[in-house]
C-alpha cells in the first residue's frame, strides 16, 4: 500500500467521523461570516426538524414501519416544555428531560398495541393518535391556550448566558442536531441497527436470526418519539411561541415527506430532506402558495423513480456502479 492509498484508506475508514467533523466546522463558521437573522431563523428551524426527521427515519427507513403521527410527539415536547416552564415555573433544562421521559411513556403505551398492526392499519392508528392530541391542544384552552396558542415561553440559558438571539440559538440548535445525528449514525452501525434493517427487509428472516421484532419495533418507536419530543422542547424555547397549527396531521405528513425525499434509511438523508423541504418554499413563491400540492407531487415522483429517496437512491445507484466497475476490473 503506497502512501496515497493509505490516505484514501484512512478517509474511507473514518468517513463517518470526518463527515460529522466537516459539517460541524461549516456550521460553526458560517453564521459568523453570514449572519443574516432571517436565514439563521430558517436554518434553526431546519436543525429542529432534522431531529424529528432523524427519529422518524429510524422508524420508517430502518425499521420499515410507518407513522403519520409524529407531529403529536413533537407537540407533546413543545407544549410540555411550555407548560412546565411558564405555568408551573419549572427550570427549563430539567423540564426538557422530564417531558421527554413523559413522551416516552406515552409512546410506549401507544406503541405496544399499535405496533401489532402493519401497513395501512398502523398508518391509520398513528394518524388517529395525532388527531387526538391535536384536538386536545385546540379544545383544552385553559391549559393550552386553544387555537391562538401559547406565548411567552422563556429562552434557555446556561448560568446568565441566555440563548435569546438567532445566532446563539444557531449554536444551541445545531449542537443538539449534530449530537442526535451522531447518535443516529452510531445506532445504525451497530448490531441493534442491523437488527432494525433486517426487520425492514424481511420480518420472518429477522426473527430467525434472533431479532425480537416486536420489542425492537416498540424500542425504536419510543426512541423516535423521544427525539421528536426533544425537538419540540427546542422549538418552544427557540421561538417562544407554540400554536396547534404546527402540530396537525399535515405536519406529520410533511415529516414523512422529508424522510422519503431525503432518503429512507439514511441518517444524512434526514438532514437533507428537512433542509430541502424547509428551504424550498422560502425561495420559490409558487412553492409557498401550492405547498401541499407540490409536497404531494414531490412525494409521488420520488416514490416512482427513486423509491429509496433522493440520497439513499442515488447512493445505492452509485454503489452498484462502483461494485460493477471494480468487478469488471478484477
Amino acid at each position, binding site marked *: 500500500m503506497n502512501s496515497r492509498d493509505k490516505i484514501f484508506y484512512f478517509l474511507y475508514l473514518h468517513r463517518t467521523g470526518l463527515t460529522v467533523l466537516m459539517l460541524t466546522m461549516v456550521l460553526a463558521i458560517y453564521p459568523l461570516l453570514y449572519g443574516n437573522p432571517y436565514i439563521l431563523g430558517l436554518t434553526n428551524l431546519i436543525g429542529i426538524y432534522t431531529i424529528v426527521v432523524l427519529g422518524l427515519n429510524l422508524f420508517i427507513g430502518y425499521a420499515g414501519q410507518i407513522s403519520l403521527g409524529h407531529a403529536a410527539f413533537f407537540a407533546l415536547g413543545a407544549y410540555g416544555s411550555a407548560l412546565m416552564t411558564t405555568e408551573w415555573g419549572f427550570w427549563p433544562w430539567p423540564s426538557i428531560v422530564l417531558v421527554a421521559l413523559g413522551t416516552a411513556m406515552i409512546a410506549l403505551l401507544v406503541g405496544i398495541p399499535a405496533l401489532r398492526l402493519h401497513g395501512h392499519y398502523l398508518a391509520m392508528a398513528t394518524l388517529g393518535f395525532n388527531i387526538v392530541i391535536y384536538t386536545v391542544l385546540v379544545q383544552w384552552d385553559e391549559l393550552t391556550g386553544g387555537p391562538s396558542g401559547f406565548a411567552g415561553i422563556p429562552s434557555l440559558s446556561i448560568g446568565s448566558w441566555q440563548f435569546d438571539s438567532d445566532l446563539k440559538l444557531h449554536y444551541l440548535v445545531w449542537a443538539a442536531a449534530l449530537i442526535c445525528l451522531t447518535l443516529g449514525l452510531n445506532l445504525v452501525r451497530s*448490531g441493534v441497527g442491523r437488527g432494525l434493517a433486517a426487520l425492514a427487509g424481511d420480518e420472518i428472516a429477522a426473527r*430467525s436470526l*434472533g431479532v425480537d421484532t416486536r420489542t425492537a419495533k416498540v424500542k425504536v418507536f419510543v426512541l423516535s418519539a423521544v427525539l421528536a419530543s426533544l425537538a419540540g422542547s427546542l422549538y418552544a424555547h427557540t421561538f417562544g411561541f407554540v400554536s396547534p397549527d404546527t402540530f396537525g396531521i399535515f405536519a406529520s405528513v410533511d415529516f414523512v415527506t422529508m424522510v422519503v425525499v431525503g432518503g429512507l434509511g439514511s441518517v444524512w438523508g434526514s438532514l437533507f430532506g428537512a433542509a430541502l423541504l424547509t428551504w424550498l418554499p422560502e425561495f420559490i413563491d409558487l412553492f409557498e402558495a401550492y405547498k401541499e400540492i407540490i409536497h404531494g407531487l414531490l412525494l409521488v415522483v420520488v416514490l416512482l423513480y427513486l423509491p429509496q429517496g433522493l440520497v439513499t437512491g442515488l447512493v*445505492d445507484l452509485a454503489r452498484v456502479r462502483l461494485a460493477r466497475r471494480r*468487478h469488471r476490473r478484477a
Partner: protein
Amino acid sequence: MLDVTSLCRNFGGLPALSEVSFSLQRGRVTALIGPNGAGKTTMINCITGADLPDAGRVDFAGEEITGLPAYRVARLGIARTFQNLRLFPRLSVIDNVLCGLTVHGGKSMLGALLRPPSVRNRERRLHLKAMAALDRFGLTELADWPVGVLAYGDRKRVELARAVVSDPSLILLDEPVAGLNHEETMAVGNEIRALRAQGYTLLLVEHDMDLVMGVSDHVVVLDGGRCIASGTPDEVRQNPLVLEAYLGRTSATA
C-alpha cells in the same frame, strides 16, 4: 441433540404432519426427504418457531423448545436457511452476513447509541468474523454489493454464509441446492461435508437425491405428513415403502 416427538400440525383440518418423531445426532448430517407436500418445510418451521405445532414436542440440547418464538430459538443456537431465500436485498453482502451475527451483537439500544469502546471493539470483532465467513464461501469480492443485484447462485451462498457465521450448534438447510447447476450443487455438497468435518450438526431438507445420499449419515423419509422410513442412506434406498412413495402407488395397489 434435537429430539422431535410425535409432532402434529394441521392446516384447516388437513394433517401436514402427523405423529412424526426423529432425533438428530450431534456432529452428524441428517437428511429429511420426501415427495412434494410431505411436510418437510412445515417440520423445519415447527422446529424453528416460525410455525406452531398442534401437538407433540421438540427438545434441543435437553431443553424443551416447543412453541418458543423464532428469535428465542435462534438465540439458542439454531440457524436456518430458507427454501425461497430470505435475504435483505437492499443491504450489502457483508451487512447481510453481519445480520447473521445478531445473536452475538449487543441488545442494548443505549450502548448502540453511545458507542463506547466496548461496543466499538465488538463491532470490529464481528466484522472480522463476517469477513472470514465471506472468504470461506468465496464472496469476498462481492462484499460491498447490494444482494438484490447478485446472481441466484451467489445469493444462495450469501444465505449459507449468514446461517453459518454465528457458529450455531445446529444448522437447518431448507433445499440449499434448489435451482443451482451441477457444479454449484457439488460445491454446496463439499461445503456440507466441510461443516460436518468441523463438528457442526446439520439437518438437510433436499430433493436432490445424489446430494442427500452423498453427504448424509442418516435419512428420514416423510410422505403425506408421516415418517415412513429412517436409516442410513443405503437402508432407505432399499426400503420398499420409500420406493413406493417416490415411484407411485400403482404397483402396490394393482
